[in-house]
């Protein structure tokens, strides 16, 4: 008990010390995996603090959706100056909160699509894809997958951002035929998990032939583990993209510092680190090119993406179709 009281006291103390410091504090809300010791967080923090005479604090909150929910809970009273880690399927809802300010930047980006959002700025992107072992015969379309005996594990679109990405992918690729595709896929789907981690864990345990992840996932196994046995399936329909973005909050007490971080975010100090720490494509390709190993990744023939408002518009319908088809 005594031990715990000292601990609680320590918490209060450290907070007051932080406030007493001279350097302005830049608080960035992001998702959990960004702030782990292998994520981009520590490197980015060190690099930015070397130039800004400030104290950069990353605060991890679950995944992209949890991040937005957290912000909505806190409203204008939030401590956050920047939110980093929303994707384009969430930006419409995020913009509607009225909590965000324009970033005021127009950097040249290396995205497969044009970017002109004045509120949110991308820092990395990737293609959703099914990841499997190289030994598994890869289907070339969703329909071929549905006709095969291959098993997949996917995430629930109601609780996971990749899960939502998949549902929008099928909807964007097949339109009104989406329910039919889901019904055909039903017997291939081993199970649906609440989040990406559980699905990827099940896949690595051998519960399914493939898992919904990213085309860049095999790069992790190849580069970090020296394991070249994973690949991703390239579908002829094209692949839905995930573009991860950051935005500055209107309520920030250090708006200039926040904007200078946004500029830093699309500069080499940040962008050169993202591929090997977040395992996604950087929004601005480094001058030295992508890290060795990324050239082995499958590149889809075409990129699919719904705009923020369009994604929000169609989301509920697409999820209901998914749910009805898989509930039979």
């Amino acid at each position, binding site marked *: 008990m005594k031990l*715990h009281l000292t601990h609680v006291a320590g918490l209060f103390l450290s907070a007051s010390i932080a406030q007493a410091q001279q350097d302005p504090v830049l608080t960035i809300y992001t998702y959990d995996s960004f702030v*782990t010791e292998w994520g981009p967080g520590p490197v980015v923090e060190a690099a930015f603090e070397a130039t800004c005479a400030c104290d950069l604090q990353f605060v991890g909150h679950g995944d992209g959706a949890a991040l937005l929910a957290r912000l909505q809970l806190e409203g204008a*009273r939030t401590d956050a100056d920047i939110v980093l880690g929303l994707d384009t399927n969430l930006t419409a809802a995020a913009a509607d909160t009225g909590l965000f300010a324009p970033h005021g930047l127009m950097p040249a980006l290396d995205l497969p699509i044009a970017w002109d959002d004045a509120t949110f700025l991308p820092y990395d992107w990737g293609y959703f894809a099914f990841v499997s072992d190289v030994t598994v015969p890869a289907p070339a379309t969703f329909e071929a997958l549905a006709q095969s005996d291959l098993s997949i594990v996917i995430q629930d679109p109601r*609780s996971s951002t990749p899960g939502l990405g998949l549902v929008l992918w099928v909807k964007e690729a097949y339109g009104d035929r989406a329910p039919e595709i889901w019904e055909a896929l039903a017997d291939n789907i*081993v199970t649906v998990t609440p989040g990406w*981690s559980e699905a990827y864990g099940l896949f690595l*345990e051998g*519960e399914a032939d493939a898992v919904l992840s990213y085309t860049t996932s095999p790069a992790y196994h190849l580069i970090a583990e020296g394991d070249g046995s994973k690949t991703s399936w390239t579908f002829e329909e094209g692949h839905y993209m995930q573009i991860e973005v950051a935005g500055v909050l209107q309520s920030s007490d250090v708006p200039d510092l926040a904007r200078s971080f946004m500029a830093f975010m699309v500069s080499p100090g940040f962008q050169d680190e993202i591929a090997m720490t977040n395992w996604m494509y950087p929004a601005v390709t480094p001058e030295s090119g992508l890290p060795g190993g990324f050239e082995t990744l499958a590149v889809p023939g075409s990129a699919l993406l719904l705009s923020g408002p369009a994604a929000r518009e169609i989301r509920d319908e697409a999820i209901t179709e998914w*749910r009805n088809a898989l*509930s039979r």
Partner: protein
Amino acid sequence: MAQRPVPLAPGLPRWPGAIAAWLVLVLTLGTLCIVALRAGTGQWLGPADWAAVRFTVLQAAASSAVSVLVAIPVARALARRRFRGRSLLVTLMGAPFILPVIVAVLGLLAVFGRGGLLNGALSAIGLTEVSIYGFHGVVLAHVFFNLPLAVRLILQGWLSIPAERFRLAATLDLPPGRFLEWPMLRAVVPGIALAIFLICLTSFAVALILGGGPRATTVELAIYQALRFDFDLAGAARLAVLQFGICAIAAILAWTVTLPQAQGGGLDRVVQRWDGGRWSVVRDGAVLVAAACFLLLPLAMVVTRGLSGLADLPISIWPAALRSVLVAVLSTILCLGLALTLAMRWGGALAGLASTLPLAASGLVIGTGLFLIVHPLMNPARLALVVTALVNATMALPFAYRSIAPELARVEGDYGRLADSLGLRGWARLRWLIFPRLRRPIGFAAGLSAALSMGDLGVITLFATGGQETLPLAMYRLMGAYRMDAAAGVALVLLALSLLAFWLCDRGGRVDD
């Protein structure tokens, strides 16, 4: 159960119990009100919500029934047999209940999954493989989680039948099953079945993963979706009310079939049984071996996976482990305090309500409500560990209360008049009568709440910031960063710490074996 508070332990103030009860009511119903107030009005439940309700109730009822039916023979076998390693087996069998969900699910899949041991064995002898995914998979996983709890609570019932009763039954040539065990089961089983029903009612990750798809949507998943994905506070509040409603109906049903038990005290002799012959020894042995395999094989897989991950453990998990232990200690103290003060009001409506509500409460709604209360006042991160301990204590309270309260009532029933005539009142009565006789349930309750708190990943996710992660949170973050091996290592550390905490407390409370 009586309708009004029975005065237990005369001479002790009753207001701490009232405070404890109101604290729990605020944490469960109060937080729900806060969430509902923040929300505007919205539409009532849609067809998808009703489908979720149907599935939720069906799976919880099936899981609860199977858990209890399987637990009865296991508890009986444990109650009437003494063998080497029995106490270790009892402790180990408790492990699934305290494991973080995803760890247990991966362990189960390593045995029953597509590439698991069972299917490996089946295909080796040329039989068709079985799929764990579906309604039966959900029930299987819930039985895996809750069987240990049911066994322990029923076993306590068995051990509370005094040895003298069995002696008397044997002398009179009466079957102990009908005259001793059946009344005991009537008294304890409905409460245990209710508890398990309610635990399964609020499950979502297990149900979704093993249910194999959106058919297996539970109310709790719908609440999660409303809070985290749609930010629909009104929807979340409506669903939480619905969950409480189901809980109330189940509680009333359970209370109507529970019979109180009063059969007099004993002298704490070791139970000797004269019924049954060699056949019953064989049957008990088979039951124990089957239960041990079912519960321990998945755990063994967790351990095997974890051992290879130990080398990859990041240094940062040790502060996280320390934080988890601190939260567990604080949470255990709070939980025992709540349970003991409430147990003094045994039979009262307030105590009954406060000790049942947390089972039906959604951890997410509690967390969100607390957040809405705390956030305007101060940075919630400062309270992260304290709030986590408090919420964990509340969540463990129903089990602690169910373990302690009936024993307290029994002690008072058996020895109360004697103590009264001796003038043993107030603290002296606690010190000399109640605590010594409650050692076993208090130890069990402490162990359970410590272990449950250690493995919990609920409210901490809303409150903690980067530097405050606990062990389960660290594990999830490792999984999110592709570090599945390291995560398996953390799971092993977590399992070891939880079991150790449980064993230390439980051991301290068990005096007779």
